[in-house]
């Protein structure tokens, strides 16, 4: 019967019901809860409070530094994973991506045992150079890079794998040096993915909490980033906690909008690019 055919095409009620509950309960309700308690009128004043301003400044500085570090170290890593073959590559890839699924507080403990004053590498840093990383802004950057870099690696690696290598090969046969091919062909081609990866990395670094408080501690202006300030302000100054939360929410939405072209919209058929198997 044609009705049966049509029936299978109709959106199942159960999917609408469960999907609607998922959307309403877990996405919209918490958002509305936050927004309806936001002290909109005092927002400017609260964000101007010294402690809040310090958290904003520190978060901006540390998350941008972490994003830069992720770019410098993560881009070559992504390239190695996408373009070379070496023994144990699958294990290396899994290890690189591990921080994405590892509880951040565990990451913080691991960082302490590696870079802390009694840590594997940290004790040597301390003895040889007098450098201690915990309780410093550098420690915050380290913790944020630890959790955020995989987002860059995974995005860029996927882009490099999906790239049509004939463009690079053509450039090479025309006499371009490897560095020229990278700069003029490869990077522009993966540009949008790289941008999306950077945005995701930055957002993850900005939101980092567990590894930071475990490894870098919490001190205003030095290691107390916005998420830590939100957590602590909830006890003493709830309006400030809510105001900071709204700022982080706005940033998150902006990042989604920024990468939206690639992530939020469903994948489209490639238009101008030749498809190779």
């Amino acid at each position, binding site marked *: 019967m044609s009705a049966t055919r049509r029936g299978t095409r109709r959106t199942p009620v159960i999917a609408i019901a469960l999907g609607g509950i998922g959307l309403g309960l877990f996405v919209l309700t918490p958002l509305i809860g936050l927004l309806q308690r936001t002290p909109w009128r005092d927002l400017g004043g609260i964000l101007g409070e010294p402690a809040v301003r310090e958290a904003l400044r520190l978060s901006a500085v540390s998350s941008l530094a972490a994003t830069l570090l992720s770019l410098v170290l993560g881009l070559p890593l992504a390239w190695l994973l996408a373009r070379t073959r070496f023994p144990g590559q699958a294990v290396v890839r899994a290890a690189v991506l591990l921080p994405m699924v590892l509880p951040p507080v565990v990451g913080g*403990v691991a960082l*302490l045992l590696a870079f*802390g*004053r*009694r840590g594997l590498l940290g004790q040597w840093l301390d003895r040889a150079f007098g450098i*201690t990383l*915990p*309780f410093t802004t550098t420690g915050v950057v380290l913790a944020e890079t630890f959790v955020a870099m995989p987002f860059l690696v995974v995005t860029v690696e996927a882009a490099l794998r999906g790239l049509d290598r004939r463009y690079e090969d053509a450039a090479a046969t025309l006499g371009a040096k490897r560095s020229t091919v990278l700069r003029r062909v490869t990077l522009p081609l993966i540009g949008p993915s790289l941008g999306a990866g950077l945005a995701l990395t930055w957002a993850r670094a900005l939101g980092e909490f567990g590894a930071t*408080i475990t490894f*870098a*501690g*919490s*001190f*205003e202006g030095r*290691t107390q980033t916005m998420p830590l300030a939100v*957590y*602590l302000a*909830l*006890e*003493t100054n*709830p309006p400030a906690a809510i105001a900071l939360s709204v700022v982080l929410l706005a940033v998150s939405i902006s990042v989604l909008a920024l990468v939206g072209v690639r992530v939020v919209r469903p994948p489209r058929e490639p238009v101008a690019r030749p498809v190779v198997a």
Partner: protein
Amino acid sequence: MRPRLVRLGAALAVALAGGACGGDGKGGEAGAGGSGGGPPSGTVTVLAASSLTEAFTAIAAQFERAHPDVQVELSFAASSQLVSQIQQGAPGDVFASADTATMDQVVASDDVASPDVFARNRLEIAVEPGNPADIQGLADLAGDDLIVVLCAEQVPCGALADVALANAGVEIDVASREENVKAALSKVELGEADAAIVYETDVAASDSVEGVTIPRADNVVTRYPIARLAEAGNRSGADAFIAFVRARPGRQILAQFGFLGP
């Protein structure tokens, strides 16, 4: 992390040993009283200050031996954090805080009625074993190259440490203000900090730090109040637990862990 586990084990061992000598009679009493009607049963949820971790773990174990029908669930966090949890409606039956100021906040918000002080505690400087930085008192914490951690300002141990430092007229460069006293202590246990200002009981409960006494003139004595929550689901269980803490078995365990009497 390991010393903490060992310490928890030790606390349990103490609790079991304590239960073995003192608990038998108690258990018999509870059994006899069971037919009388209205003995405590079910689960008692106790929200307690971080500094009570070892003592209340031991007390809860012994309480459960004395009241086999009752299970105690313990939740430890900074007193200030527990206050905000309670005010946000977190379920619980008993609240024990590390100072009267935080307890007063939940009294003011009508979340508890009449708290009673059950113990006192003093501050002490926790340093690494052998005191490698040779810290003799609060004044030594001002050293430039020392890493000193305190509790956050809103956490009782942090507020008290600020008072003690002010009493001594010492200004220090604090490396981190930790979210509760055990977090501050663990930074010294891990060797990441040279010193932390914690409670005497925290130093006593740790195998991997040493204590440096803060002289009485500068030190602060904090009083620990305990109260049943207004929204307690298990009122009889809450009352029984509070009575147990304040009676001899509870006082003995608190004293074993270095708390001063009320």
